[in-house]
């Protein structure tokens, strides 16, 4: 379908964008890549009076890697993250996850910040940011504030963003040298939203009986209203060699996740698949 009529503005600075958002309040919608928003306009699920296209604001795109932290500008496309050598070297979790996001033609346009603001519970970047303990940089007329990804996602498509506020960047601490990352998901078709996925990280060090996993982090997508950090499963796996870690995490997982059925997959099947992915991901971390 065609979207209903709206006005369009492309501010050239943050200040101008804040003006527009303030002036139009609830009637305005921020437009970044548009790969979620324009689809919802076309389906007439949303009908804002004004689109504020933020892609003309300088300084909001790009990847800057420092020693212990990587900063990803909100307007950085999924594709730019996928292709970045710096991301490949410092945050392999993101490099692995990128190819699961939609298709190349959508990754060329959709943005990192847009995905976080959208907060789809089956999206890849939110779960990665939770696993990596990323911090979002939010800006509004009142100034800048920082929110941990682990508290930013409030509910289904619901975030801590206030009216008139923009995501401007995400800062991600770089895990240590002996950390490993594994991103896995199951989808009906390459590029579809995940049925279940996991963003896993751990340090793989020498233990008594093979490699022991420490600083284990497991964040799931597609199994709750938000990305889910599985703290019980993480604690259960902590310090154990991979095989034991997997069994312990799998046993603890139903204390973390209470998936609900979607159109194609029952809650029980989702739980089963989450356990299967947990086993595979922890094995990959120790491999």
């Amino acid at each position, binding site marked *: 379908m065609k979207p*209903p009529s709206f*006005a369009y503005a492309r501010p050239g600075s943050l200040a101008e964008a804040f003006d527009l958002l303030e002036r139009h309040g609830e009637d305005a919608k921020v437009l970044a890549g548009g790969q979620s928003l324009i689809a919802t306009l076309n389906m007439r699920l949303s009908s804002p009076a004004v689109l504020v296209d933020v892609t003309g604001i300088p300084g909001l795109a790009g990847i800057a890697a420092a020693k212990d932290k990587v900063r990803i500008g909100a307007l950085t496309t999924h594709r730019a993250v996928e292709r970045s050598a710096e991301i490949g070297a410092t945050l392999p979790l993101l490099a692995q996850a990128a190819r699961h996001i939609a298709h190349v033609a*959508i990754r060329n*346009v959709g943005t990192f910040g847009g995905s976080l603001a959208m907060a789809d519970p089956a999206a890849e970047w939110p779960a990665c940011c939770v696993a990596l303990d990323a911090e979002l940089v939010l800006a509004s007329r009142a100034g800048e504030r920082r929110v941990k990804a682990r508290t930013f996602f409030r509910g289904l498509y619901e975030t801590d963003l206030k009216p008139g506020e923009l995501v401007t960047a995400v800062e991600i601490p770089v895990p240590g040298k002996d950390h490993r990352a594994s991103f896995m998901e199951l989808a009906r078709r390459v590029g579809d939203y995940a049925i279940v996925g996991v963003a896993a990280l751990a340090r793989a060090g020498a233990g008594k009986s093979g490699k022991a996993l420490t600083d284990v982090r497991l964040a799931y997508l597609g199994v709750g209203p938000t990305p889910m950090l599985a703290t019980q499963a993480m604690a259960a796996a902590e310090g154990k060699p991979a095989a034991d870690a997997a069994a312990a995490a799998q046993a603890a997982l139903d204390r973390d996740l209470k998936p609900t059925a979607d159109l194609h997959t029952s809650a029980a099947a989702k739980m089963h698949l989450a356990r299967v992915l947990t086993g595979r991901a922890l094995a990959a971390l120790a491999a």
Partner: protein
Amino acid sequence: MEHTLETTITVNGTRVTRRVSARQHLVDFLREELGLTGAHYGCEHGVCGACTVRVDGEIVRGCLMLAVQANGRTVDTIEGLSDSGEIAGLQAAFHRRNALQCGFCTPGMLMAAQDLARTRPDATREEIREHMSGNYCRCTGYHAIVDAVEDALKQSAQTGGKR
């Protein structure tokens, strides 16, 4: 606030300026303003790939981009790629391998396949399938399309990438 905006886009090498409604999709701009009907609408919400065009050299969904968002940018359509000969090898392979029946999906398929040819000319069959997974075809069952793309990539490798 403006509901219509003056928009300048370089389409297949030619600069065009029109006053367009903000809600107009890039594909409607191409089809209705310029008569370029190669990019099709299948789903109009990003799922089928029939609307694939290139913006600043990268493939995008023409139904998920507004014409005003393409202001100041370069757009290439199937008509441009066909006329320049850029996809002649792919077109011949689609013909040879019967990779189209009704042809509705074909412009989008060719745009996506050419993107792969440019970025990963050594793609395996599995990688071809993954790359083309964003394009729906309701006729062929995909097998012939994958055959054609594989053929074209092999042939262009043999001829040293020359088309």
